[in-house]
């Protein structure tokens, strides 16, 4: 198991533009800040619909909760004129879903199995 987290940010055109943050690797206390920073950069650049692709997360601990919490709170006012932005999760790996379910976060974020369905949700 690698101890790094690779982060790719790209834009998808759904009904509205959606910024996808694709994570691959380990989301722990060593790497969560990098994830937050990249998501905050995207929000600062104008992203108000954020889809976090968690299919490649090999390991996630409570640091992942902290990061998702921080990003979700930041996106809340990321829309034009401070309007509410939106965030959803795509295809969480078993390791990510284990944490989300154990603390009940899966019921607070929209969780989608595939990209097309996720894009339609925004």
């Amino acid at each position, binding site marked *: *198991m690698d*101890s790094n987290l690779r982060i790719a940010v790209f834009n998808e055109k759904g009904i509205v533009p959606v910024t996808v943050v694709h994570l691959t690797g380990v989301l722990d206390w*060593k790497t969560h800040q990098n994830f937050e920073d990249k998501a905050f950069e995207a929000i600062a650049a104008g992203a108000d619909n954020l889809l976090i692709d968690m299919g490649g997360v090999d390991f996630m*601990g409570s640091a992942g*909760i902290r990061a998702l*919490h*921080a990003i979700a709170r930041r996106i809340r006012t990321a829309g034009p004129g401070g309007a509410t932005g939106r965030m959803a999760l795509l295809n969480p790996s078993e390791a990510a879903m284990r944490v989300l379910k154990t*603390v009940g*976060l899966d019921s607070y974020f929209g969780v989608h199995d595939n990209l097309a369905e996720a894009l339609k949700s925004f």
Partner: protein
Amino acid sequence: MSRTQQLEIAADLDSLKQARDFVKETTQLAGLDENRTGELLLAVDEAVTNIVMHGCPQGGCTIQLEFEGEPDACIIRIRDNARLFDPTTKLDPDLAISPLERETPGGFGVYLFKHLVDQTSYRTTPDGRNELTLLKRMAETNISAAGFADRELDGE
């Protein structure tokens, strides 16, 4: 007859991967299935993280992990010379509160390790260290009351 293995690591975030690899290797050799290994691995990661971040933020502490494999369970004992603290007494966060309404997302680390293993126990060792014991059964069972009530988790 039980089998034990030990690993000693520095109490810092760079050691988390070593701790996870130790749990993965020892429990898989013992025959714990992949899902339960993932749960125990996460529990140990959170317990070790808690020591690093709250018990010894100044650094310089040492954590000893001990694996004990029994026919019906995998047991991980975590001993450290950080500030004495019993994490099993920490109150759970209120999960009914939306994460978006929380000012801080704290408290989930201890919650995770308490809820991902079948038993937790804590003691201070005779030489003055914290010792947290996490027990994960090899399979779901309904014999907890009869089969594990008398298990001695305090180790040595």
